[in-house]
């Protein structure tokens, strides 16, 4: 298991915009560098990329939740 953590404080979004499909869902296979979410801080949007390859096991926070640096956003089963 590997964790994708938030690099910064802000609001975590699972999709690229309101009404859009989530970047990833539980069970999806992700590759290194793939976009898995967005963290917004003061109207600046930072894309969160997976730093591991594997399968999405769970989300550490809800969509639209406030996150702090180091918070676990997503847990990935490696491989």
């Amino acid at each position, binding site marked *: 298991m590997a964790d994708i953590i938030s690099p*910064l404080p802000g609001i975590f979004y699972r999709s690229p915009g309101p009404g859009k499909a989530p970047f990833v869902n539980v069970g999806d296979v992700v590759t290194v560098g793939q976009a898995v979410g967005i963290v917004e801080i*003061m*109207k*600046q949007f930072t894309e969160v990329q997976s730093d591991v390859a594997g399968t999405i096991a769970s989300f550490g926070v809800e969509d639209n939740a406030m996150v702090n640096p180091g918070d676990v956003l997503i847990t990935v089963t490696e491989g």
Partner: protein
Amino acid sequence: MKKLLIANRGEIAVRIINSARSLGIATVAIASEPDAESLAAKLADELVIVGPAQAAASYLNQEAVIKAALDTGADAIHPGYGFLSENAEFARAVVAAGLIWVGPDANAIELMGNKSQARESAKNAGVPVLPGTEGPLAEGDDAIALAQEIGYPLVVKASAGGGGRGIRFVESESELLATIEMAQGEAGAIFGDSAVYMERFVQDARHVEVQILGDGTTFLHLGDRDCSMQRRSQKVIEEAPAPSLPDAVREKIRSSSVELARACGYSGAGTIEFLYDPVREEAAFIEMNTRLQVEHPITEAITGVDLVREQLLIASTGKTTLTQEDISFSGHAIEARISAEDPFNNFFPSPGTITKMDWATGPGIRVDSGFAAGSVVAPYYDSMLAKLIVHAPTRDEAIEAMNAALDATVIEGIKTTIPMHRALLARPEFAQVTHHSRFIESTPDILETA
């Protein structure tokens, strides 16, 4: 108007509360949960928490905002800038709820919100617009003759393009036909629509704008401003009047802006924005903002007119007390927008608790702040903390006064953009007015003098 609800936050909410108070109007602030202890929330006579942190659920929550007004017995809503200020649907809902909307008619907001309709209205009112083909190039059009009318350099743009894609630059006539052909092929391949049109390309354009006021019958301007110092299209330094503008251009943008206001029966405060080409000495319409502008204090400084007070009077009585003859201009004003960002770390947002906030004071200095020492800068909203405004007899003295005011200002606990403002004011390009709206991006060493 007896009680005004301010549908905004931060410095502009504080600003509006102060003008309402001077007219004897009671005030209701709205706030999201994390803003409950904000300066505006504490300053207003009453406070309604309209929702959680996210703007969509609080400051943009139309139903909650209107309910807050009705519940507190407010009879008017001032939207400030941003948030719901240019939302025609909200303006209609406010009026439908029996409340006074402090702003122009919803139809004017809608008209100016549509790019092509706004350009057409501006053109019909005599406002200069950027030369270009009327719609896409058609089979049989004499592109060379059309291009000559527009002038070089020009751009060939895909009608279906956007966001900077599908644009080709044409330096001279020799490249024109081949570029059009290439652009059409490319547009067809990328966008599935090969239609292209031509438009003047303005190199190193400045951003100038005209402040207008109207009440549906009387229309006037309060002069111009220059907002060319921008970072990622966000204004960072503004000044009034616009420097280095030929008299004929200044007169043209002022008078045609008044005509545009008249043409749409405008009521309230508005701003007509122009792209200024310093080489051709020509201005062209960009858009009209149907609301109070962030940088309105520099116009207030040089005219002595309280624009928010005028907005409130027009909204409550339907009449402005001003005519063009009442407006005179004195000196030069500069505004620095101070944001919670770290200029030494790629302007990364810097939320947190402000431990110290001491502003410069003295004649000609004005500070519009939404925060004070002890305030928490939440990560949810725009990073602008405050506006520092100086007013002096000349532009050189105003620059000097701004330098001194920035030096005397101390903000601790969070990072701010003050070092960037110092660096920009020290640039010879700013002193000589050879800067333009992409100056900051095109000057990567900008902070080395900070």
